[in-house]
């Protein structure tokens, strides 16, 4: 920077920490278009997360298991409270609900194939159950959503579990929108709406309004399915203690809790980034609710929202969850945001790793699209193989950590195996700040 003409130095320009370049760009975009930003995915902002926790591992006071040879059970039973046929999974990592419509048929098939190979479940989404998905998923959870698009009693009875979706982490309190460009003849037919129009998914169910109604709704679903299959209730991470309590009161076999990092096919960016809580802040409160009701482990807890690695899985188990769900990570395993498509991402005005316009249907990886040419890029057999590999790696990673903590079962991990790197994470996870025996809000302390 040049000095002033008189030779005096200039004031150095300072970029505002409040009005950053990205903030300013969004203001200019909004001013030019008059349209708020809609995108897919979950929260991108940095929030306290599993990376802020560490396992302590074994030492003199803890006895480790041999890392490769000694058994470490990863199986989990879901739906043991009321269902005649609870679900047994080989691994506690399930595939989250994602709709046919938001995803291509090939992507849904790949998810089913991969989940089945790995011994876990996959989940339908808004728009109903497709034959391909049912056919390729040994264990399929059927989402019962406010829109009831494609919902029918035959599919309900053809499912291995039913998940009543009250909310999701990306948008607690919000509905959804599948934009018209993804509404092909088949998607339109399944949803009983004209081709090419935007399809709104309501934010609340059409025939019940509160926990007392929900209890009766679950009674109806159980009567319809002969009390055979588990009923899950999925909520977004908003008020985990009370939502978990009410879900149990309403009769849930399983509570699914989704933090703000959990993805969506499409909603407003402002919603994704500013509504709901990080999953780290939700798990212990949900577990506390279950413990207060004497229902921990009797009603199972599945958590989701930013689960990426076996370490994340192990941390969720240690905090008291019975299983996790992955959505975004599974799509990445299939090939979403892969740098091999960088040229095409550039053409769409983005870059690999940042592509989130899933609602527009132009996904170069053939995953969040209904375009036949793009969809053909995803081989569902190869996609299934990749997902299975990824799930295996996550499981092995989690086992490695569990053994190092002396546990012969993933679910034997406990909060005492953890410490936190930050005050925030310590407060949210209710585990000690590293090097201390204390966390903010700990009973018996004054801070």
């Amino acid at each position, binding site marked *: 920077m040049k000095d002033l003409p008189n030779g005096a130095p200039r004031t150095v320009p300072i970029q505002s920490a409040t009005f950053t370049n990205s903030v300013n760009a969004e203001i200019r975009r909004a001013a030019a278009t008059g349209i708020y930003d809609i995108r897919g995915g979950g929260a991108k902002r940095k929030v306290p997360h599993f990376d802020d926790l560490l396992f302590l591992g074994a030492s003199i006071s803890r006895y480790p298991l041999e890392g490769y040879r000694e058994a470490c059970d990863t199986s989990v039973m879901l739906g043991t409270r009321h269902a005649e046929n609870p679900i047994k999974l080989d691994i506690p990592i399930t595939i989250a609900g994602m709709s046919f419509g938001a995803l291509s048929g090939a992507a849904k098939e790949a998810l089913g194939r991969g989940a089945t190979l790995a011994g876990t479940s996959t989940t339908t989404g808004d728009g109903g159950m497709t034959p391909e998905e049912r056919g390729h998923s040994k264990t399929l959870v059927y989402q019962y959503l406010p829109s009831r698009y494609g*919902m*029918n009693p035959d599919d309900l009875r053809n499912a291995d579990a039913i998940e009543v979706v009250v909310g999701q982490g990306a948008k607690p309190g919000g509905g959804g*929108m599948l934009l018209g460009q993804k509404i092909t003849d088949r998607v339109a037919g399944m949803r*009983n*709406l004209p081709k090419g129009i935007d399809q709104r998914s309501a934010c609340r169910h*059409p*025939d019940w309004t509160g926990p007392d109604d929900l209890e009766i709704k679950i009674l109806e679903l159980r*009567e*319809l399915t002969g009390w055979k299959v588990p009923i899950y209730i999925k909520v977004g991470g908003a008020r985990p203690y009370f939502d978990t309590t009410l879900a149990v009161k309403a009769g849930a076999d399983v509570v699914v809790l989704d933090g703000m990092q959990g993805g969506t096919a499409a909603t407003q960016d402002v919603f994704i980034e500013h509504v709901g809580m990080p999953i780290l802040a939700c798990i212990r409160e949900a577990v506390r609710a279950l413990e207060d009701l004497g229902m921990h482990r009797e009603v199972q807890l599945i958590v989701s929202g930013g689960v990426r690695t076996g370490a994340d899985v192990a941390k969720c188990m240690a905090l008291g969850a019975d299983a996790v769900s992955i959505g975004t990570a599974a799509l990445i395993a299939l090939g979403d945001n892969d740098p091999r498509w960088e040229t095409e991402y550039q053409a769409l005005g983005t870059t690999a790793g940042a592509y989130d316009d899933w609602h527009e249907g132009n996904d170069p990886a053939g995953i969040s699209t209904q375009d036949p040419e793009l969809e053909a890029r995803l081989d569902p057999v190869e996609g299934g193989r990749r997902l299975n590999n990824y799930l295996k790696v996550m499981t092995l990673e989690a086992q490695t950590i569990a053994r190092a903590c002396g546990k012969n079962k993933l679910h034997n991990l406990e909060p005492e195996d953890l410490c936190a790197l930050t005050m925030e994470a310590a407060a949210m996870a209710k585990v000690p700040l590293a090097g201390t025996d204390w966390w903010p809000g700990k009973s018996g302390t004054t801070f």
Partner: protein
Amino acid sequence: MQTIDMDTTALRDLNAALQAQANETNQTAWEIVNPKGSHAIAVGLDAPIEVTVKGSTGYYCAGMNKQATVHVAGSAGPGVAENMMSGTVVIEGDASQYAGATGNGGTLIIKGNASSRCGISMKGIDIIVHGNVGHMSAFMAQSGNLVVCGDAGEALGDSIYEARLFVRGSVKSLGADCIEKEMRDEHISMLTELLARGGCDAKPEDFKRYGSARQLYNFNIDNAY
């Protein structure tokens, strides 16, 4: 005629017996006594049987019905015939909120009044109400027909898609994107058949037709408020 007394038969046993009937069943006539407002009566039926409920029912009576004819000789609680696929449900008295919600097919006949959100998100069902319907009826209604022989409450047909609404009486207000539409011969013909099916002696010519202005079909920021 098979009679099931809910004073002595559990709901599970009642529904299991009805759900066990197959297409070729000889036991086509069923009577349920002492329902006393129980919830989830006769849900998930899938056979051409006729079930008469002698009294009033709670939530979700005849929910997700297929093929069966369910006759409620009383009033029905919330969500009667919700997500019905086919068949017929007749309510002699009044129906509470969400009657026929998300119904895909079949016919729901309410001889009294229906409360709020009648036909919410309906997806092909035909609903014929002899009396009035409450507010927000046919909210986000996708397809099918809602016939109201009396009056409609506030915000009728809010955010409606392709469903057709026929109202003989007054409409307190129309919801977003719902407008009055021309009653053409084809609609008179259609309504004549619906009224006959619903056992109404009203004249089709006395009705007005309402439907979607189709202005909300694709996202537009000017409609976002």
